[in-house]
């Protein structure tokens, strides 16, 4: 039976900086949003509209000033830092624009990292799962290469494999193709879509590239801290 619980639900989420000070700025003004399991969603909008802030809040890297956020049905406002970290580690994967790999680690070690954070000590199961993920992103030959020595496209594929390491329900991608050429960007989006369809993983992709946005199931447009338009692919 398919789990109908939304992977992400936001209810009236607001975010302000400099709360209580004369320069208080509210960047998100009561966001309501629901992402269902297996959705492939694009988040667009002009720079400074609040996309990254929204992504950070959904990714449990930042806390909303008010409103409620549910990850896989679990309300997060009452969780402490340790609980948030654990939930983030298990339920959410990240793909950043600048891939954010640890350059001193090999591709394999980068993929092992989220699993190590969960269990503390490396074991063969972690190693073999990471190797399998690198097969999925077609980087078997490169697994022992230092990530700093790999091309942008290869690094982003390692980042995708790393995001999948804990088999999360949600992957947040912040401009995943921003630093890639068109051909490589296409390959990366294809790969993400393949994972989405095969694993049923929900993707929320922040992008300025409308070509990529139109390849998604749904497009959310954020302007001035509010979702002003939501369109669904027919």
């Amino acid at each position, binding site marked *: 039976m398919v789990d109908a619980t939304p992977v992400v639900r936001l209810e009236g989420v607001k975010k302000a900086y400099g709360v209580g000070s004369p320069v208080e700025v509210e960047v998100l003004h009561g966001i309501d949003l629901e992402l269902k399991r297996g959705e492939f969603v694009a988040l667009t909008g002009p720079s400074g509209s609040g996309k990254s802030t929204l992504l950070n809040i959904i990714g449990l890297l930042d806390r909303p000033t008010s409103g409620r956020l549910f990850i896989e049905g679990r309300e997060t406002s009452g969780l402490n830092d*340790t609980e948030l970290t*654990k939930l983030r580690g298990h339920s959410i994967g990240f793909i950043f624009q600048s891939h954010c790999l640890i350059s001193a680690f090999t591709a394999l070690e980068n993929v092992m990292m989220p699993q190590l954070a969960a269990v503390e000590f490396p074991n063969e199961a972690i190693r073999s799962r990471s190797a399998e993920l690198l097969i999925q992103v077609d980087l078997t030959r490169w697994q022992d290469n230092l990530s700093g020595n790999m091309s942008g496209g290869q690094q982003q594929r390692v980042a995708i494999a790393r995001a999948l390491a804990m088999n999360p329900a949600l992957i947040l991608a912040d401009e995943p193709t921003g630093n890639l050429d068109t051909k490589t960007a296409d390959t990366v989006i294809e790969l993400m879509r393949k994972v989405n369809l095969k694993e049923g993983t929900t993707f929320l992709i922040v992008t300025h590239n409308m070509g990529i946005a139109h390849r998604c199931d749904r497009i959310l447009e954020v302007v001035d801290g509010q979702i002003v338009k939501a369109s669904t692919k027919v």
Partner: protein
Amino acid sequence: MQTIFILIAVATGVGVIVFMSGLLTSLQANFIKRVLTSQPQIQLIPPDEVARPQLVSVGDLFVAAVVQRPGQRVRSIDQWQTIRDMLKTWPEIITVSPTVATSALAIRGAASRSISVTGIEPDVYFKIVRIPDYIVQGVPSISTDDVLIGTELAKDLGVGLGDKISVTAATKASRLLTITGIFDLGNKGANARSTYVALRTAQALANLVGGVTTIDITVTDIYAAETIAQSVQAATGVEADSWIKTNSQFFTAVKAQQSSNTLIRFFVGLSVAFGIASVLVVSVTQRSRDIGILRAMGTSQGQILRVFLLQGGLLGFAGSIIGAAAGGGSLMLWHTFSRQADGSEIFPLILEPSLFLYSVLLAAITGVAAAAVPAYGAAKLDPVVAIRG
């Protein structure tokens, strides 16, 4: 590169600590050995004789009198056998040796020399003052007609092993004694004056049959000698002088040396700690993005904290292993090549394994302590800010 530099810094610091500590410990042990193997750690002596005025002031009547301090004759410690037997039962006391000390004239033909005669029970006295270690000719064995003399006295009297000398005390008592051993205490004056005879012989010379003038004691903790001496005095009523009291200047020097050693260790340790801390602060700054990534991937604050504490501890540990080996090696090298004029060693080198163990342990703890602030800073990094750079 940073890691290599800080390892060198830690190793240098620990090396200095090991070198200094080993050197000072050896030097101090050698000084103490020299002092305490040529004298007892506590000595019980009979009370001084004092003159009591026959006339005292009564009421308004004032008596003018000059009370002269009397000359001190050789006296025995009252009830010394009881005192000796009691002290032998004290756990903090190792050896109790009764002795008789008196002055005499050693005569051989036309030559005569003023000497100090110490009557001893060799079995116990040699545990306190290790005369056998200083014997250069003959054996340290004394029967009632034997005497051990120093090298200078032997030279002055022109005598050797097996020769006889006449010893006449101030009491006019005289004995003809055979030289069974010649010692070198490393001090010309002591070699010219000191002689050792059997306790009975000295008692006869001092006209002190059945008595002793001192009771010599060694204790388990040489630094507690003064406290034990006070307890002995309180328990026996006999004046007890510790080596700390009789060598107060030497003891002060030893204490000063210990204090300076501790201070050197403290400040070197402090500089090592700041070195580790500064490297880790830089490391946290340089790796803040990586830390942010790790946090985003589910690494907890506690895990980040532990990583940096562990790094500090490992830096301290690894650096101290190298430093301890280098410090110990340098000291052994120095000891090998630094010789006295005659080629003998300056002093015996003491390198306790505990010195290395404590140095390594202390450096590792210092490393962890030094890492605390940067580690806390790393754990508290906001992942969003860190990733954004």
